[in-house]
């Protein structure tokens, strides 16, 4: 089980085995936030190993190919980072409203609407300088996705509609709108088998970071995550949001505009997912079609929960889960596992991570002496 141990050690990061009780007292909480999700991840990998063993596959091969496919070579690293980019952005769609105590799981819908808006902007502005088109695409993607999730927030605030259910229903509605437009008004007559919009044009694609095959979407994601972190933890606005998330009545008593907070946060959350849609169009697909509903929005929910809704922690977690999905192809080719095995593993990880919530504050040696 050496490679598995390596996997888990990698996941856990640096465990700090020190005898100094003062150190544990000071950093016990922070260590918990690394140790417990890491242990949950390791547990999920073990269970998944047993699962594939039932189908006659060697779990050691599984871990080896997962590592190879995710982080083994420069090629797989690039694949991983390319997949991590939209995951960072869709995870923000769940993590930002979570600061207010809202559970929004409709990032996939905002991604699709963002992609549609960005594509529309690019098609309307054909012939303009590429930079103008690209900026317009970013703005359109953010506004499209932002308004989509802002609708969820408004329904919650003004009508009391549960945000979890409404955001998920809106995913299916967004997919219907996308299919309707792609097969109707916006259809490129040349796209026969796979109805699509017209291409935004090679010149308007945002391209790769120099020296790599990783597109600029990764930088968008990193900037968005850091900005979200600063917003939540280092501004008055973020402080107000966390107060409202902790105790909505207290927030009202001290005079916080809760409606404004909810609508703004939801707009930013949806804007992030919409940007993910723009990135997928402008860096990968080049057009809008049903391929965009690739499940980034749903994996983003898992990323947000695994990162404990912390915008900065989302970055490494998104890379990790991007790696898992990047390794799917290799698992399919070398081990003959179905492509859904990535989904199964994600599901197991999610279950373990949630169950591990029960462990916080209960690990004896991290409590120190007080």
């Amino acid at each position: 089980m050496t490679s598995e141990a390596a996997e888990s050690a990698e996941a856990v990061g640096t465990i700090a085995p020190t005898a100094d009780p003062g150190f544990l007292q000071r950093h016990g909480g922070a260590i918990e936030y690394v140790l417990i999700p890491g242990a949950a991840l390791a547990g999920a990998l073990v269970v998944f190993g047993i699962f594939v063993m039932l189908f006659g596959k060697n779990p050691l091969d599984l871990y080896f190919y997962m590592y190879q496919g995710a982080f083994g070579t420069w090629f797989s690293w690039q694949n991983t980072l390319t997949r991590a980019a939209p995951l960072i952005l869709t995870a923000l769609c769940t993590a930002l409203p979570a600061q207010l105590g809202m559970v929004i799981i409709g990032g996939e819908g905002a991604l699709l609407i963002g992609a549609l808006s960005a594509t529309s902007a690019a098609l309307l502005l054909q012939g303009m300088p590429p930079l103008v088109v690209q900026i317009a695409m970013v703005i359109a993607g953010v506004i499209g996705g932002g308004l989509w999730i802002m609708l969820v927030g408004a329904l919650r605030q003004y009508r009391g509609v549960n945000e979890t259910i409404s955001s998920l229903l809106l995913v299916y509605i967004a997919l219907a709108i996308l299919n309707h437009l792609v097969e109707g008004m916006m259809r490129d007559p040349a796209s026969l088998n796979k109805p699509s919009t017209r291409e935004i044009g090679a010149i308007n694609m945002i391209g790769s970071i120099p020296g790599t095959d990783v597109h600029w979407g990764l930088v968008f994601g990193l900037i968005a995550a850091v900005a979200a972190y600063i917003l939540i933890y280092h501004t008055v606005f973020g402080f107000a949001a966390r107060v409202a998330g902790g105790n909505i009545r207290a927030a009202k008593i001290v005079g916080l505009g809760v409606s404004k907070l909810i609508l703004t946060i939801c707009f930013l959350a949806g804007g992030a997912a919409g940007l993910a849609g723009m990135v997928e169009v402008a860096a990968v697909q080049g057009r809008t079609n049903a391929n965009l509903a690739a499940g980034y929005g749903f994996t983003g929910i898992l990323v947000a929960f695994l990162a404990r809704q912390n915008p900065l922690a989302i970055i490494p977690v998104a890379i990790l889960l991007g790696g898992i999905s990047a390794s799917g192809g290799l698992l399919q080719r070398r081990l003959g596992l179905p492509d859904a095995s990535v989904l199964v593993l994600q599901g197991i990880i999610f279950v373990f991570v949630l169950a591990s919530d029960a462990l916080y504050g209960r690990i004896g040696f991290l409590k120190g002496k007080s």
Partner: protein
Amino acid sequence: MADGSIGLWTVPLAVLGGAIRVSTPFLFVSLGECITERSGRINLGLEGTLVMGAMSAYGISYLTGSPWLGVFAAGITGALLGALHAGICSLPRVNDVAVGIALMLFGTGLAFYLGKPLIEPTAPRLPAIDFGWWSDIPQVRAALRVNVLFLIGVALAPILYWAFRTTRWGLLIRTAGESSDAARAMGHSVLLIRLRATMVGGFLAGIGGSFLSLFYPGSWNEGLSSGQGITAVALVIFARWDPLLCLWASLAFGGAAALGPALQSVGVTSGYHLFNAAPYILTLAIMIITCSPKRTLTGAPAELSITR
């Protein structure tokens, strides 16, 4: 009216047929979720349960040749997923909404994984009862081909309504949902009541899934359920946790879901995808109309996290 040329009457007929045919999964999932939510817990994972139920029913029906064994297997699969949900939720500080989301992803993923070899073969399907024998019009006959599961579901709704009101189990479930302290004071384990309620809910949702793969549409593929499970969960909320209202709401939803294919069959193809989204739009619209930010919903179990 000549045979086969009933013109635009096709649409209401198909909607009626759809109300009967398409509503069955909605009905089973919503009744199951109704039991779970009455006990004070919400299981959003029933979307995954529905897909797992559909896959296992198809697999067992294919392997044994008996669709009814398939239905039973789907129920058992659903109950196991329900037990998993309840088991994780009984840990301290674990959020039932989040666990439901996790199981939604897990159930769908597992069903796709295990169901890969089932896309090709054809499994024996559930038989239908012909209530349209009196008519010469094929569309009427098609609309009235009713599956036994639908009849079971229709019978189950009033039975559950009665059981919630009068039986010992019904009262226990409601007590756990209204006040866990009261249930505990009576000497009952709230976690155990919720475990059983979630397992029964999962059992019913699994059976709802078996209908998808064994009757209508009647095959296994990865696009089989697109949100029927989650729509049914939402449906319980505006049915006010009342099994009888769940029945009517499911019928309305079945009709709405049949609208797209019905219009397509008479040549209205332009808004096909939008009409297919009708159940989701309808759910959202009804939730917008019936919810209120000022008060909790009437009939809502007090312990339910989602309405607090």
